[in-house]
């Protein structure tokens, strides 16, 4: 196998070992175990060991299996989109705003839909910040409005207009049945319907968000787990500088 092709690694290069656990809706026993082995085989695994089979009731069995995955992928062909963020700290960011934008920045954040999770958006916006990294409210050159949770798209938009925001920060945590996709899309449609899409930087965030997904949804950028406020601030500042001519929103 050429070097750039990769497979899972157990204890020998390219052994392909993966661990699997799953439930089959059948009663435990030799037949169930055989079914589990056959099933795992259908997932492109060879040498499947059904190590563990335990009854969860009389019609459901839990399995732990190991097997050697057959596919290999060419790692050199994989490229992941990331919000291009220059690494800057609190001081550098404020400096850059003063020097290169020469005005204060204004952002508004909210958790939209019926989602009540605020810890994520708070981590980015509140004074206190996250992981020893100050939140946007603390930046002297940024005016940050945190609307909290359960905010409708309409309310968010209204506030953004009222305060003449540069950027909308939108958070979504509940992803069951793709609730987050639904809410993100609805907001984007609203922006477009109101012909306000280009007026703001629109940034998505939450535990299941990647930059790629955000782009797909029509957002400017997306930030996932572990994001630090300074990363978001740096992204906003550098993007606004780039778009300077196009944008003339003011607080």
């Amino acid at each position, binding site marked *: 196998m050429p070097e750039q092709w990769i497979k899972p690694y157990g204890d020998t290069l390219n052994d392909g070992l993966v661990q699997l656990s799953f439930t089959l809706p059948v009663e435990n026993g030799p037949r169930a175990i055989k079914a589990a082995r056959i099933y795992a085989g259908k997932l492109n695994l060879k040498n499947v060991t059904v190590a563990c089979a335990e009854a*969860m009731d009389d019609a459901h069995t*839990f399995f732990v299996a190991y097997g050697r995955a057959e596919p290999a992928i060419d790692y050199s062909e994989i490229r992941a989109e990331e919000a291009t963020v220059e690494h800057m700290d609190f001081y550098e960011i404020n400096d850059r705003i003063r020097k290169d934008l020469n005005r204060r920045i204004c952002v508004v954040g909210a958790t939209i839909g019926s989602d009540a999770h605020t810890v994520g958006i708070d981590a980015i916006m509140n004074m206190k910040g996250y992981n020893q990294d100050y939140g946007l409210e603390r930046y002297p050159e940024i005016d940050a409005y945190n609307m909290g949770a359960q905010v409708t798209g309409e309310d968010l938009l209204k506030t953004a207009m009222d305060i003449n925001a540069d950027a909308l920060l939108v958070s979504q945590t509940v992803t*069951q049945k793709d609730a987050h996709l639904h809410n993100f899309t609805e907001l984007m449609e609203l922006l477009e319907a109101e012909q306000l899409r280009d007026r703001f930087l629109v940034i998505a965030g939450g535990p299941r968000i990647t930059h790629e997904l955000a782009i797909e949804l029509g957002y400017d950028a997306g930030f996932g787990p572990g994001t630090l406020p300074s990363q978001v601030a740096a992204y906003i500042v550098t993007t606004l500088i780039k778009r300077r001519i196009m944008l003339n929103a003011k607080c």
Partner: protein
Amino acid sequence: MEKIPLNKEQIGRVKSTAADIAGQIREMIRTYSTVCVERTLLRLYGVDGVVDDETPVPNRVVDILVEENRIDSGVTRALAAVMIKTGRDAKTVAELIARRRIPLEDPASYDMERIMAVEQELARKAVDVLDHSRKRKQAAIDRWGLPVQPWKYMITATGNIYEDRTQARSAVYSGADIIAVIRSTAQSLLDYIPYGPTTEGFGGTYATQENFRIMRKALNEVSERQGRYVRLVNYASGLCMSEIAACAAFEDLDMLLNDSMYGILFRDINMMRTFIDQYVSRLICSRAKIIINTGEDNYLTTSDAMENAYSVTASQLINEAMAKDALLTDDLIGLGHAFEINPKIENAFLYEIAHAQLARQLFPNAPLKYMPPTKYKSTNIFYSHALDTMFNLASITTNQGIHLAGILTEAIHTPLMQDRYLSLQGIDYVFGLARGLGDEIAFKPDGLIVNRAKRVLDETEQLLDELKDIGLMEGVALGKFANIKRSRDGGKGLDGVFKKGPNYSNPVMDRIEREGVINA
């Protein structure tokens, strides 16, 4: 066994301060009622069903009362009047009113004695519902006894009541003592109870009376098969707090998440509204012997467990006092707390033990509800399973009452069947392995554990003293709990609060209050 030497006088002081704080709320409650309370009465009188395919009859009837500006006298006498007029029962009458087939009547134009007789009859039936439920639960205890504590509490949250049923059966098979059907997200904001069985939900399954029934029936069956009674839980907090309590009594639920503080802080529900609804829902729980669970654990998902532990304890004390005001006895007060200290903090386990043991000693007879780690759960399910293992140990060591099962996929998705199974397996492992540990060890006097507990109690006392001065509502407005600020006049549901008029009557509440705690 006083493992931590707490100051008895101080405990007396905080309990009495908490009672004072609750008393202030109780004052407010005396003068107000809510649309929810009135709908609750209708339900207890037997009113049910929907009109126009979705509006519950109790809602429509109360809406009409509001429309007609007669809500301040409450629903009961108005209903009684129509009953007298039509000679039909409450359910039929309410339906007819809801369909606008017949108008509401002004009770003033009826003989007061007849009205009151009907009213008493309605109240009797209503209280019968509660008594009946209490007795059925007592019968289960008589037959099967109570499980040893900590009780293993397991959630289902598929969104589909029939899948929930499948998951619940499997969980019981794996040892769960209690099944909690988690509610679809934001149901607390609905100002009505959805109707019938439901198969779509988000992060949970709608709380409907039919869903309660389906699950209770399934659990009755597995109870028979397993030879032990499996308890059922749902969520009352929100805009339908007391109504859901009524439905729960109808369907013999054993526990309810029941805490207005949760609604205020996390759902932005108006505080007056929900304090009133809570009081009535707790009266119902008291009479029907439904254990309430409070939501202090949630505070620590937002604010820090080391910094704000005292706010949990303070809230527990206030919640206990409010529960006792509503006739709940110790055995029905499942005060909540949680294992939520940042695991990166050196000796976090010792502080967790201190918190859990403090709660245990402050409320020795309450079935404390102990919440597993959630905030610091990782998407690394193996790491998260280790967190739960330590949580299980803290619980058995400090002898908690209601043990919420920690789930290894907490940071990923609502639990799969196998996640549940692994959780229960882990609990059994640790509980068996260390059942006697709490009895076996003593804490170093002046050590980390003892000092931490004392410190939290001191901070609690400070907060309570402050709250006694400014009042609970002002305290909430200042962000004293979970760092979230809510104003007295803000939040959802305030428009459903009304001042009781001179003719206001609520014979069910009167009766329950009058008859006090009943234990048979």
